[in-house]
């Protein structure tokens, strides 16, 4: 975890952001209409992060694995789609969306296991992770994966280490067609809007940018030709939201839970002091 990126939010910790420096929000833009599924991004991610190779097998598709794994943080999902005699082979790069309002961070009970930097990147700190898996249920995109051996959770870091020294993420560097772009979210929104307009003029009436408001917007934004049906792209949820109860997790539920637990302990002690051990009644 890089030390020179200001932390804006910390899991299971109340209180205001601790940093003072300002930073523009970054984003990764994925243009699925120019993705050729070459997997340079898959290999770049593995190589940069020195991840172990997964045991893979041919399961009837060009897709490398059925799902992300603790050792495989970004996956191109291949989907064949046919309608009205038109055929499309949809390819979407799937990885952590780096939500502005991250469900994983809100769900996490371990202080400091999940942090969000002021530039928007959401990072896991395995040193503080207790392996409970709450982040998995908190994530509307089913991204975090538990490593069975270490018991810790892993996901795309948006190359926080590279970004902290002014480099672009490894996947972006490797992408040969310019399908992946990195920069400030403001700039990329402009670029994306122009591209969506171009796609609409070419006949893709429902082309849209996927930047779901239900999670406060994301720092990984995706251009979809069939923007009205994100589920075609390997199960991208149409309207992802952070589960409602998580909104109250840190502020109300957990403190309430802690309070109840404290009261329970205090109450049990008070009772013991007052009444002593339970006595046997009867011969």
């Amino acid at each position, binding site marked *: 975890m890089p030390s020179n990126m200001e932390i804006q939010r910390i899991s299971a910790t109340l209180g205001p952001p601790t940093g003072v420096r300002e930073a523009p929000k970054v984003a990764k833009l994925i243009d699925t209409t120019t993705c*050729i599924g*070459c997997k340079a991004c898959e290999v770049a991610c593995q190589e940069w992060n020195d991840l172990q*190779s997964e045991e893979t097998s041919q*399961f009837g598709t060009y897709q490398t694995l059925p799902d992300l794994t603790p050792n495989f943080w970004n996956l191109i999902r291949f989907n064949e789609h046919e309608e009205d005699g038109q*055929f499309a082979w949809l390819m979407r790069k799937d990885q952590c969306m780096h939500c502005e309002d991250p469900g994983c961070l809100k769900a996490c009970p371990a202080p400091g296991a999940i942090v969000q930097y002021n530039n928007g990147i959401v990072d896991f700190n395995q040193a503080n992770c207790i392996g409970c898996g709450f982040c998995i249920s908190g994530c509307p995109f089913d991204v975090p994966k538990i490593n069975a051996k270490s018991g810790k959770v892993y996901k795309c870091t948006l190359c926080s280490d590279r970004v902290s020294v002014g480099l672009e993420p490894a996947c972006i560097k490797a992408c040969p*067609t310019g399908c992946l772009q990195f920069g400030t979210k403001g700039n990329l929104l402009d670029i994306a809007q122009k591209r969506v307009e171009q796609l609409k003029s070419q006949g893709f009436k429902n082309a849209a940018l996927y930047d779901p408001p239900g999670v406060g917007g994301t720092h990984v934004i995706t251009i979809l030709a069939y923007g009205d049906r994100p589920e075609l792209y390997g199960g991208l949820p149409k309207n992802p939201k952070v589960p409602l109860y998580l909104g109250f997790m840190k502020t109300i539920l957990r403190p309430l839970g802690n309070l109840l637990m404290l009261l329970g302990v205090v109450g049990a002690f008070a009772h013991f002091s007052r009444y002593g051990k339970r006595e046997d009644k009867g011969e």
Partner: protein
Amino acid sequence: MTNGWVDIGNTDVALVMGGNPAENHPCGFKWVIEAKKHRNAKLVVVDPRFNRTAAVADQFVQIRAGTDIAFLGGLINYALENKRYHEEYLKLYTNAPFIIKEGLKLPEEDGLFSGFDEKKKVYDKASWAYELDKEYAKVDPTLEHPRCVFQLLKKHYSRYTPEMVSKVTGCSVEAFKKVAEIITSTYTPDRAGTVIYALGWTHHSTGVQMIRAAAMMQLVLGNIGRPGGGMDALRGHSNIQGATDMNQTHTLPGYLKMPVPDWQTLKEFNEATTPKALRPNVMNYWQNTPKFMVSFLKAMYGRNATKENDFAYSYLPKMTGNHSYVYAFDDMYKGGVKGLVSFGMNPVNNLPNSAKTLAAMAKLDWMVMVENFENEGAIFWKAPKEMGGLPPEQVKTEVFQLPAANFAEKDGTFTNSARWLQWKYKAIEPPGQAKPDMEILARIFLKVRELYQKDGGKFPDPVLQLTWEYGNPLNPTSEEVAREINGKTSADQIDDKTKQVTLKAGQLVPGFGALKDDGTTACGNWLHSGCFNEAGNNAARRSTADPTGLGMYHNWGFSWPANRRVMYNRASADANGKPWDPKRAGIKWNGERWVGDVPDYKVDSDPKEGLGAFIMLGEGVAKLYAIDFAEGPFPEHYEAYEAPVENPFHPKVSANPTAKVMSTDKDVFGKADKFPIVCTTYRLTEHFHYWTKHIRRLNETQPEFFVEIPEDLAKEKGIKNEQLVKVSSARGTITGKAMVTKRIKSMMINGKKVYQIGFPIHWGFAGQSTGPLANLLTPTVLDANSSMPEYKTFLVNLEKA
């Protein structure tokens, strides 16, 4: 490529056929994406499968594998019928006005042109010639003479109606017309289209004619010679272009012809290979052949090549027949080859009919395999029985394995598809005993020379007198060899007019324009001359200056010939030297000289003089009609050698009558009754040919061999995704997992339902990931011009394993 990678970014329409650039050239393919994003260019893909390129295309049309000539002929007909052709361009820059002599018969009735010898399976081309007036061809500038090329072209392709295209290729008339409109839209001067292709065209018994047909279409549309236009051939290996530039079995460096026994003297060679002008007022640049040839001989034999000994021409071996790759192994199978030295070539995996290849290699006395990984060729005797392997005890070959340095472990140039020589630097030392090919060659050569010096031999001179003047003879540097290829003088060069010394003795020549046939210049490859001259290592330049804004980058690397970026660029401007499209100017006449790109033309020739635009040809103009090829002056649709139907145009002459067919006991072929399914082979992004199965990360992303099967065929045979299936041809059987897909559809061909399947080629018995040898199934039938095997269309049967 006539144009280039970056130039693709200048196009309005990119037609991709016989190639899959998104799959196999993902980096170069970004230029197609750039054109789409920044110029609203249209990408049209016409292919037997919906592939990764089709995934980002504006239009996709599926055609039956091997029917590309029918489709392209249909496009030519569509352009001519609908007056969507660039008439001025045709009149100025092609042989459309040329008149053909009486007696030419077109193949409309029986599938044959005039002059076919049934027994020898070759044409007597006498009836194909131009009608001459003394030594020049007669022309009709109005294009109306019934025997002028333009009228013959119209007549020949009039049979290629949209309905006929649909019948032969299986695409719908509607789909054909839709893409025909888009593709032919580039006929106007302000629009330009390019054709991008690769082995999906070359790997057919009619491959050369497929490419021809596309080039003709591009001429009809006026797209050759212009930025954003051209014929953009995709080469495979990083330096395959450099390799073919330097030498093929039938060519010397720079595409000079390989001598044959009929040409015993240099004079006979020059006479036979130097073309004659066929029109007045043409440059006929190949008339400089003697300069290139003598300079080449001087590079080879230096001081030992003199006027007195015919510049050592007699030291060159004379080619006694076709000894290209498939022929050589056919010879080997017949016991005619003792030894093989193979540099980075894997015959077991890349030749058709692997069982024959394995049997052939077993007959060698010895073999030297120079390789970066221990691939199938290097351990051919370990081939399993089911892959056609012989029992190892039956293999008597003595094998020498020499580990070679990989691409990042040595420096030198790669010449890419765009003809750019780009210098690359060594990044890391080769491991263990691995050495660069240059060093391996040098050591072998010097040892052989030593033996000749000691023991003599039948004809030692070519070996003993070869120039080998390097700082360290055992390991020449790439710079030294690059300078040899560039060329230098051995005597002061004096300008005829000014009498000044333009080059001193021993200086590097600026380019091939300085080459002489008097023995005072030496040049290893005239085409590459200019790559490393007195200005320095031009292949190592990396300037991103782009004053034209068209991505020419004249100071990035060195583009042959003469650093020209777009070839045939005189045709990018009209008769007055004004560019057809001022926003994409190739060259233009500024009143005194041609400026822009390096002119493919005499730089100070006033357009009023009307010097022929295509300077390398005796006609001075591009050949819509050409007699250079085996099959005929115009491409005609012929079925693949193993085809599911008879040729709908002329069933009696179904396949290419001139195709070369190998004929040993192992060269067996199948028919549609037993093998009803069309099969094709192809590549995957994640792998490169056969050696990436040694690489962990690539095996991770594409782990196993598979067979792509259309949904309805899978249903018919009860095959589910991931189930093991057997694919068999007349030559063998392979087993693999099924990938049931919507991306290949069944087709109706002339009323018959035809299925197509396909599989990738990358597997074999060596490496971390093993699988079947794709080429166990492919046939030994070759294109008559290129000797290229028909890997891309053959007949198979499919069943559950």
